[in-house]
């Protein structure tokens, strides 16, 4: 189920949060409304951690992670590193890496099995990603843009990419990622997908400017409808026996 919200009057949700299957990082803000929405949705399932990275609030764009690990840029302070290590479960490996392209969230996108990265990434960083996150790494561009982390968002169920992606590119990416992909927009025609949307396997959050059409596209491609009780009941109905003949 996708939720529409705002961070301090901005619709670019994906900039201020990082959502994975095992945890959620949220930025600090004046009022508590943003955090409280996440808390209400996720608190009983996964830990929701309030943090900054390198003193900034743009946590979503600076770090990259999945259920196995979390990678932080070299600008992260030691206190933040400690705070994160303490707040996240032990299964999650928190690692700070030295990478020239320090906005890791813009340069890479990943789910629990595959990662797409910027074409100019260091070799060591690639090995680190493969190590810490336990994923297969592919260097790719999306619609001619090297910032793959900004222009696509994908989970284990599906993915949404930049609207100008050609059909051949879409096929290629889909085969690499092994998930269905769709080209679309978010926040009323914005092409920066990951800036307006943050998603994991059962839930998604997007900016409040997102139109109903975009929302339905998101829900379809990330298979969010199936998490609802009606869907589960429909699935189960096929295996339930009504009358015993």
């Amino acid at each position: 189920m996708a939720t529409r919200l705002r961070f301090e009057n901005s619709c670019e949700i994906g900039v201020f949060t990082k959502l994975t299957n095992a945890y959620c990082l949220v930025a600090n803000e004046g009022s508590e409304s943003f955090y409280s929405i996440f808390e209400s949705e996720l608190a009983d399932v996964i830990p929701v951690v309030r943090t900054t990275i390198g003193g900034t609030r743009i946590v979503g764009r600076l770090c990259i992670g999945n259920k196995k690990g979390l990678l932080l840029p070299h600008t992260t302070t030691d206190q933040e590193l400690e705070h994160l290590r303490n707040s996240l479960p032990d299964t999650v490996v928190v690692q700070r890496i030295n990478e020239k392209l320090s906005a890791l969230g813009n340069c890479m996108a990943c789910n629990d099995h595959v990662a797409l990265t910027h074409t100019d990434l260091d070799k060591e960083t690639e090995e680190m990603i493969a190590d810490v996150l336990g994923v297969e790494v592919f260097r790719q561009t999306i619609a001619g843009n090297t910032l793959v982390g900004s222009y696509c968002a994908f989970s284990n169920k599906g993915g949404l990419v930049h609207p100008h992606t050609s059909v051949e590119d879409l096929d290629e990416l889909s085969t690499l990622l092994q998930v269905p992909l769709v080209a679309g927009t978010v926040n009323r025609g914005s092409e920066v997908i990951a800036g307006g949307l943050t998603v994991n396997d059962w839930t998604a959050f997007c900016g409040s400017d997102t139109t109903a059409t975009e929302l339905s596209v998101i829900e379809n491609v990330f298979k969010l409808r199936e998490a609802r009780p009606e869907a589960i009941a429909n699935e189960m109905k096929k295996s339930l026996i009504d009358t015993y003949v």
Partner: protein
Amino acid sequence: MFRVQQTAGSVLCCTCGIPMAPNAANMCATCLRSQVDITAGFQRHLTIIHCPECDRSLQPPRTWLKTPLESKELLTFCLKRLNNPNQIRLIHAEFIWTEPHSKRIKVKLKVQKEVLNGVVLEQAYIVEYILQNQMCDSCSRVQANPVQWVAVVQLRQQVAHRRTFFYLEQLILKHDAAMRAIRIKQTNRGIDFFFANRSHASNFVVFVEIFVPIRKRYGKQLVSHDTKSNNYNYKYTFSVEICPICREDLVCPPPNLALGRLLICTKISTGIEFLDLLTLRHRVLEAKEYWRTPFTSLLSSKQLVEFVVLDLNNLDKVNVSGSKYYMADVQVARVSDFGKNDTIFFVRTHLGQILKPGDYALGYDLRAANMNDMELDKYRGEIPEVILVKKSYEERRKKQRGKQRSWKLKTLNMEVDGDETMNDEYEEFCRDLEENPELRFNISLYRNEEYQPSNDDDPPSVPLEELLADVKLNDEDDEMMG
């Protein structure tokens, strides 16, 4: 480098959900149009002031432009009246049909503008123009007083005949110089041309100056004065005097001009060309020089007398300067004396090549003429008795009397002042044209359909190739004039 074929995919429009090709705004055209109206600041209704008499429209503050319905000029005019805010680009403009009497003009415009993040939107919209009737200044002036003139050119020549004016009339017709004259009036000794504009009159004077030597003066008279705007309305008068010396006139110029003693005028244009009888040379006197010391002619063509050539004796065997004049000694007698008495004159003439014994010639009889000229008095002893001027075709013309010519001339429509009949003079003028091809050079002659050619020995006439066929509506123009 190998490039993979890229086919554009399709995304859903973010507002309405229909599939479309992705664009910069990622909205379908309909949604974009409903969101943004690029024609927001535009005028939809405008007024044009239009004169119904002459079909012209006013471009403020004072210019009136010709704008017929559904024409290019009207479209340009309408577009100019639209003021264009925000630098919006105009792609296409066309008229939409409206009833001609509805006083409304509708123009459909297509404009393009960049909206949102780089999407260029094209939109068509209609502007309606309301035509308001108002008479333009020139039409209202014409309405108030149709014969009101502002400038007049008064052509005058102090001679007893009207040959010059016939010739000028033909020139004016050929060059359409009097096209803008409101009225043309014929007076004794001249013609008046009335114009609505001082510059038209001035142009006309310049035109006349090319063909005859003139002296001009101009004056103006105050008609009205607007004290508030300091506009003064005048009537302008150009007094043009044409030099009184004509072709075939005998002159004795004052000695300070150093032209000679007795001269015959051969050609009039911006200067006067004379033929010196003693030396057979041509001399030209410029108009300005003439008017500094103006002199009149001794004898003019009205005083030509007819002579019969009895005997001819050519003096010059060789023609030196290529002219058509040869000196000869002739014996002539006046036609009025011929047969009655034995008065014979022995004279020297320049028409040696043209005359033969038995021909008729026209010339001046100086012995019998009564001339009152101070210059001539000094030469009293040395002037010849008879000066022959040209060959006469009178005998042949007698046969032709009453018959029509093969050509005719057009005329200006003039108001004639008084009861003058000038048929004789007109006949003389036509004869002049027939005998002198160089006079015909600037004139248009038209073929006379009612002419039947006769087989007799004709006097010199205009060859057929030189005649322009009268222009009819369905025929093509048949100009063969060299």
